[in-house]
Structure formats: C-alpha cells, structure tokens
C-alpha cells in the first residue's frame, strides 16, 4: 500500500457549492502501486465524493469506458498503474506538463512530490468531470465511414472462404474498443476538428482490409477525396501511443493511403501525388530535393499526361510567398532552385545502387505486418519445448478440419481421451514474403515522365 495524491480536472454542470466552470480537486488515496489509476479514482469516489463522475465498467481494458488523460497522456485509467503514473508525475509539474529534470537525467524529485494529474479526454466536449461527449464527435465520425460490411447481398450457403491472414489482419482493427483515446490524442483533429480521425479511419481499414467487403475502391475514393480524410493525418504517432489495444490507428491510415495509391486514386488533396513525387525524386537523386518536391507534388506531370488539379495550382501559388522569402533569406539558393535538376547527386555509383533497390522493392512490394507475424525472437519458444511445426494442439483421431499433426503431450494426459485437445485450427505460420508483381500505376507514370 502506498499513498498517492490524484489531482482531478472537475466540472460539475449542476453541482451545489462548486465553482461554475472547470476546476481542480485533489484527493488522497491509498492503494497498492500495481493497482490502477481507475482504482484510485473509484476509491476517491467511494470514500470522499460520490459525485466524481467517470465512466467505467470492466476495469480490465476491454470495455473502453474509462478513457482519460493521465499526466497529459490519453489512455485508459484502468490500464495505467498508479505507481507508474506517480513516478511519471514526479518528473512533471502539477499541470501534467513536463518541467524538465532537476539537473542530471534520472534524478527524481522526492516521492510524494507532484500529484497524478487526471483530466477528461481531449477533442471532445466535457459533460461532467471525466465524462466527455463521445456521441457528437467519436461516434459521429465513426458513422461517417459507412461502418458496416458492404457485401454482394447474396450470402453463400456456408462461410465465405478467405485467407486466414486476412482475418488476423482485420482482427487488429476489430480489437478497437472504441475508447476514444486516439481521438483524444489526435493532433490533426486538434487543428482540424473535421478530420475523420484515427478511430474512424482504423474502422474504415477494417472493411477495406476485409476481403468480404465489395466496395473497397468506393471506400478508398471517398476517404482519399475528403479534405478531412486519410491525407489530413499529420503522421504524429500520437494515436499509436494512446491506443491501449495495439490497433495502431496511424498505421491503418497509412495502409489506407497505400491502398488508395494502388487503386490509382488521384486525390484532390495531392496526397497521392506528393507520395509519388517524393518516391520518384529519391529514385532519381538519392536524397530529397525539397524544391523539386514542392513543385512536383503540386504540379506533377505538367507537360505530361496528368493535368494538375485546380487545388494543386492553388497550392503551388500559396507556397510561393514562402519560397520567395526562402530565396531572400538565403535558405533557397536561387529561383532556378525551384526548377528541378540542380540538386547534388550521390557520389560515385551510389545512385545506381539506390535504383537497384527500387527495382528489387518494386518487384516484390513485401508488406511485413508485425501484428500478423509477430517478432521472431519473442515467438521462439523457450528451450525444451516442441518445435513450432509440432505445435498444433490437435490430436489426429479427432481432427475435423484436416491437417496432420501429432500431440506431443499425449503421454502427459494420463491415458485420457485425445479428443479433448482437438482443434482444427492450424496455427498460421508467418506470412510468406508475397511476390505480388504486376505493373503499378506509379511505374507507368514514372516511365512516361522519364521518356519525356
């Protein structure tokens, strides 16, 4: 048992004898350091003030109710150990912001220094204390992405046959518990409240990645063209850090972008064009020529087959004041710098090697998803265990789904019925390095450009 001070951002819209607006209140709680911040809040509610409002139910990071900010980090209160939150708070001031170390790194202020700061989630209106209005934000955005399976309307008699990996893949997004922590943490949404946001876009991937959904291209087109869609994500990783379930919403957004690119969707936000231009420049030059990027990503294909969009022209015009200032200050060396081709090249044959890498990677386009494959070292069993190949738990007699396999443990079952251990679920091996091959739209565009 240890004592902690929790400092809670409160708001009581109709409380008696409390300030009208938001205010801070500290509670002293006493509990084991391995218990959670939620346990601390519930103790404060049970012992001191029953009006302290916080949504909670399962206490085990399954129901998604208790999204809050702890020391400024969006998370679940039930998943944050109070001892750890206390250590973190001790490196901070009382407002959940970092003040910096004392002098040397590693030096903590004495125990009991700063309170653990608990606030309602961000990017959503506060209803009371730690309870926010998810309906008008989170759920509204969720509904924006047509969050249900669009099938061909004619279910087969049995199940649809799909790749096992495809189901594991979308299990990552199905694992989302809709807690809103990622929405709370989203830095794009802070600047653009209309951004569809990490949770809803992860949900969108759940369908885009689902081979049973038949409107993949329509979904991608919709999300790419929306100025608040997939290209409005600022790639800050806040959602990845906030997510308590490993959904990694930003990774899903990047996969949506990749999929939209595969579908040759030229969005009016220039997202795809920017990506192509960037990739092309590195192929040509090895390092980034920002001036060329600026021009290419706005106006790729001028003189070629692609016409720049109206928005692209506006974008390029908007970037001109900045460019001119850059030239004046000496940041950009000259006006010609805005014209491609002046950038320095890699020495010797280095550029050729870079180009060879391009050829190799574009031939294979392997996508390694660690959610599906896991990390090798972690997956390797401790010594003495059976090799993975013999790992299935199925006993031959009772297997129903097929696949041979022996049950190394049968001798331990004490003469029992082998059927008790049967399963036809053959563990999915790490995804093969898939050779997809095939011509890609970007290659096409590159070639055309080079021919020109």
């Amino acid at each position, binding site marked *: 048992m240890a004592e902690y001070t929790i400092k809670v951002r409160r708001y*009581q819209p109709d*409380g*008696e004898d409390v300030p009208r607006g938001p205010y801070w209140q500290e509670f002293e709680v006493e509990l084991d350091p*391995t218990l959670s911040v939620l346990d601390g809040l519930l103790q404060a509610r*049970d012992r001191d*003030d*029953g009006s302290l*409002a916080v949504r*909670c*139910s*399962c*206490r*085990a*990071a399954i*129901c*998604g*109710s208790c999204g809050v900010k702890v020391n400024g980090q969006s998370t679940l209160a039930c*998943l944050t150990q109070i001892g750890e939150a206390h250590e973190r708070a001790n490196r901070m001031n009382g407002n959940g912001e970092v003040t910096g170390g004392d002098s040397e790194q590693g030096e903590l202020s004495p125990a009991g220094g700063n309170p653990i700061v608990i606030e309602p989630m961000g990017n959503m209106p506060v209803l*009371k*204390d730690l*309870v926010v209005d998810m309906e008008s934000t989170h759920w509204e955005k*969720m509904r924006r992405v047509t*969050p*249900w*399976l669009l099938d061909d309307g004619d279910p*087969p008699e*049995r*199940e*649809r*046959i799909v*790749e*096992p990996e495809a*189901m594991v893949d*979308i*299990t990552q997004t*199905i694992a*989302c*518990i809709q807690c809103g922590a990622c929405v709370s943490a989203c830095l794009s949404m802070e600047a653009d409240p209309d951004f569809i946001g990490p949770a809803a876009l992860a949900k969108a991937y759940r*369908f885009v990645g*689902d081979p*049973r959904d038949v409107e993949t291209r329509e979904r991608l087109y919709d999300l790419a063209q929306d100025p608040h869609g997939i290209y409005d994500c600022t790639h800050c990783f806040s959602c990845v850090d906030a997510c308590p379930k*490993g959904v990694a919403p930003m990774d899903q957004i990047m996969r949506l972008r990749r999929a939209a690119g595969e579908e040759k969707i030229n969005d009016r936000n220039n997202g795809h064009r920017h990506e192509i231009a960037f990739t092309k420049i590195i192929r040509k030059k090895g390092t980034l020529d920002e001036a060329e990027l600026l021009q290419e990503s706005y106006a790729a294909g001028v003189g070629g087959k692609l016409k720049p969009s109206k928005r692209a022209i506006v974008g390029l015009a908007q970037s001109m004041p900045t460019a001119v200032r850059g030239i004046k200050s000496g940041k950009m060396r000259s006006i010609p710098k805005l014209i491609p081709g002046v950038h320095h090249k890699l020495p010797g044959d280095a550029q050729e090697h870079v180009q060879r890498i391009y050829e190799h990677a574009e031939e294979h386009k392997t996508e390694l998803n660690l959610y599906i494959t*896991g990390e090798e070292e972690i*997956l390797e069993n*401790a010594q003495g265990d059976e090799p993975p190949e013999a*790992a299935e*738990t199925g006993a031959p007699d009772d297997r*129903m*789904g*097929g696949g041979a396999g022996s049950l190394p443990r049968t001798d*331990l079952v*004490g003469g*029992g019925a082998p*059927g*008790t251990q049967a*399963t*036809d*679920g053959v*563990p*999915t091996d790490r995804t093969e390095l898939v050779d997809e091959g095939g011509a890609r739209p970007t290659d096409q565009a590159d070639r055309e450009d080079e021919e020109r």
Partner: protein
Amino acid sequence: MPRALPTHDVLVIGAGLAGQRAALAAAAQGVSVGIVSKVHPVRSHSNAAQGGINAALNPGDSWESHAFDTIKGSDYLGDQDAIEIMCREAPEEILHLEHLGVPFHRNEEGKLGTRAFGGASQARTYYVADITGQAIMHVLYEQLMKHSADVERYEEWFCTSLAIDEGNRCVGAVMRNIRNGQMELFTAKNVILASGGNGQVWSPTTNALICTGDGIAMAYRIGAALMDMEMIQYHPTTLAKKGFLITEGARGEGAHLLNAKGERFMERYAPNKMELASRDVVSRAEQTEINEGRGFPDGTVALDITVVPRKRIHEALREIVLVGRDFAGVDITREPIHIKPGNHYTMGGVKTDINGATAVAGLYAAGEVACVSVHGGNRLGANSLLDTLIFGRRAGEHAAARAKRIEHGRPSNQTLEREERMVSEVVGRQHGSGRRVSEIRRELGETMDRHVSVFRDEEGIQTALEIVRRLKEEAASAYVDDRGAVFNQDVLGAIELGFMVDCAECSCVAALERKESRGAQFRTDFPQRDDEEWLKHIDLVPNGGGPEVAYSEVTLTKWEPQERTY
C-alpha cells in the same frame, strides 16, 4: 408539459449481444424497435467473452453431441427441449455472423476453424483470437448503425423499473436519461430484458461493474419467477487479486494447471478430460488443492501457458498476454500465472420458455438475465455467447410477432411519478443517515464470496442470508453525495445496490433450499447429487418481504441422467 412518450412495439433493455440480436431480429420483422442501455452498447459485458462460441458445424460433429455435452455439463439440470433448440440452431447462427462480417479464425483452407473447449467432446468452438465476444458485439453494433432507421437507440439510459398495466402485463419501462437526469415512461407492447447477469453481487468477480442484476431484480419485482438462482459459476482461471478472467481458451490451446508442487493435479479429478473438464469440476479441484495446502501462499494454483507454442499464443491468445502483462505483471509466454476460481456467471435468472417469454405477459428475457434453462447447474464454456444469440433472436422474433397481434397497453397510473419520487427520495437522503453505498456493496460482495461460492454449507449460507437481509435494510437508506441531474452515477449506484441485494437474497434462499450437490452448487453437508429428490428447478417469486420457493420439473427429452465423470 405534455410530451410524446417514446413508444415502440418492442423495447429491448440492455444492448449486449442478446439485446442487440433481439433488436435486429425484431426489426427484421418490420415492427418498431427501441433499444436502451445504461452504457453505450459496445461497453456491454458481452465484450468480456474471450474464448469463443460453440456450434456443431463441422462435418463429423452433430447437434446431438453438442446437446449431450451441454446437458452433461449442466449436471442434468438443463431443460433438454431448450438445449436441443440452441444446439440445432447454432450452426446457422455462426454462419449468419460470418456473413455479417465477424472475422472468425480460419484454417489453412480459409474455412472456419475451431478450438477445443472445456466439457466438449469435439473441438467446436469458433473464435476471433481471444476477443470473440467483443468482435461479435462490435459487428452487431455495426448492424445497429446500419439499421438505425429501424432500431431507435437510447444510449446511456438507465431503467429504474418495468411498467405494468392493471392486469399485470408488462407495457413499458421507466427510464432515466443519464446525460440529463430526465425521467421518461417508455411504452411498449413487449419488453425484452437483455440486461445481463449479477456478478457484482460477488467480489471479486470477472464481471464488469455494470453487472448488477438490474433486469433480474426488476422482473422479480413485478412477479416474474426467478429460476436456478443457486447456480453460480466460479470460473477456474481468474486472477487472484482483481478477479480478471483468463480465458478457458488457454486450456483449450493446451495450457496446464499446476499446484505448488508442480503436479498436474487434474489427473486426480478428471483423468480423461484433465484441464478441459467442465468448469464446476475444475474449480472444485483447484479449491480442494488450495484448501488442502497444495496451493501457493497467495491462495492460488498456477496456469502454465508456456507449454503452448508462442506463435500460437501470439495468434490466438493475444488478449490474455496483455491481461497477464498489465494486470499481473506476468509474461504468460514465459512463466506460469497464478489463478484461482472466481465468480463468473449466473446460470439462473428470469425464468423463460423457449421463446424467451416470462410468466409476465409482454415481458421477455434473453441472455444472462434469463434462465431458459440451457445451462442448468453449470454452463459450458463458449455456450454463453450462443445462448445470448439464439435466445436473443428468438425473443426478438416472438415479441415482434406478438406485437403485431395486440394493441398498446396502458401503464398503471402514477408509474412515472412513483419512480420520480423514488429518485428524489434517494437524492434527498441526508448524510450520516445511513451507510455509504460503496461500503454496503463491499460487504455484500465479500459475504457472498465467502459463503455462497465453490463449496457451501447450511451454516455459511444461513450466515450470508442474514447479512444480506441486514444489508437490504441498510441499502434502503444508503446516502449519496451527488444531488445533480447530469451524469449522477451516485444515485444510479444506490438504485443498483437495491437490485443487487434482491438478487443476493434469492441466491441464498435457493442455495439453502437445494439440499444436494449438483453442478455449481456443492454442499459439503450434502455432497451427493440426489436425482430422486432434486432433479427439479427451484423457482422464486416475491412474497411480502422475501422470495417464496416453488419447484418446476426439468424437461427431459432423450437423455436420462447418468453419473457424471470427466
């Protein structure tokens, strides 16, 4: 100020799997449907069902085999007509879910794959990693969003009581909008209770804080009988301190149970099925090991998942890796984790027929709130999701059909006013006039866990009953701090406490009444099963201050009771 009452043909209370399935099924019949939940639907406790859902869908399996396993698991207290229906309809339901988009695990051929589960003679458990309940519930919620024109959702509304007419027919319910405190009388031709179990009556429990037996108590209060209330499942693998669940899927994947001496002790209790005997058997075995000094000093035994290949853990048991890491500080892929039996499931509940209809006209129940009874004395793992879906759908369809035949009823006068007065009375209680809600709740949980758990005897149950009756009195005057209207969780907590003590009283009375050992009820003073005397259900209806005991027959179709060994 006159207002249009929220009115529906079918009003579903509770939005977990049973409720959502019922609402979708009723809406498919073209009637007007409302679904109410005190939490956002995706917060419902169906989320916590990790391991999977049973169905005899594989070639070589049969519904009869599934039914027999279920009946044997129930220790022959399950009603066989209902079990037959559940097991026959299971395959179709799994396929329906697959078609809606549940990403069930596939085998190498891309077909639905299964895992082994306790008490089953075949591997017939379909699953999504170890988040099966969550995956299914989120997919059903996708369907609710899709069908939002057909199903009106009332999210974060709390039901305080069921409304009846002069003829004691259920004609609606009184709700409090949690966001603004507004009380409303909802009228409905039929009400389907799908509000879940009452695990919070015990502490610790695997159940969420919302599982306070609201529906069980509300139905009981208007005279619907409760059945099998003594049958409380203790799950064999829960974390010692917080009571969190480690899925039976872990043992399905091959994990071992070990005592402190490192022995696979299940050899002594269930030499054939070992760790995959039915839950009551495994929990008793563990408790015996612990009681006889072969457990660990923290009152636990160990679950060794390290024998499961890591790749398989990564794929199939991700969630419990997190549970171990985050809530016990244990890397389950590298070391055994300490577990013990913990409160998990209420086999009993509101007595219904095979269509979910209760003794009160217009009132249906499905899921854990209900007792059909398909689980009897002990529920098999991965049968609870199935129960919610099959009987949720059947209740929805039946209620919709009934709605087409009848007119709206008229709630008794003063129904809404009575509830508004009740809430005002709670809010108005003076500090110091009684105990804190949280204190009473804690004492209740600890009492039930001590005396009405894996092993019971008359003295213990009697002690518990006396305490519960005192707590019931105290609950009536427990005070609250919050006087506001917006998100007043304090006042809801006081109302929930009232539901909980009613449930607790019924469980004590039924456990005291059943003088034999069957399924989850093990009486050390009556250690044998007694089919002569006790192959029957205990039904409870309110009579004055407490429950009145009656009996009803167990429906047997083709399976005669036999000795039960695993």
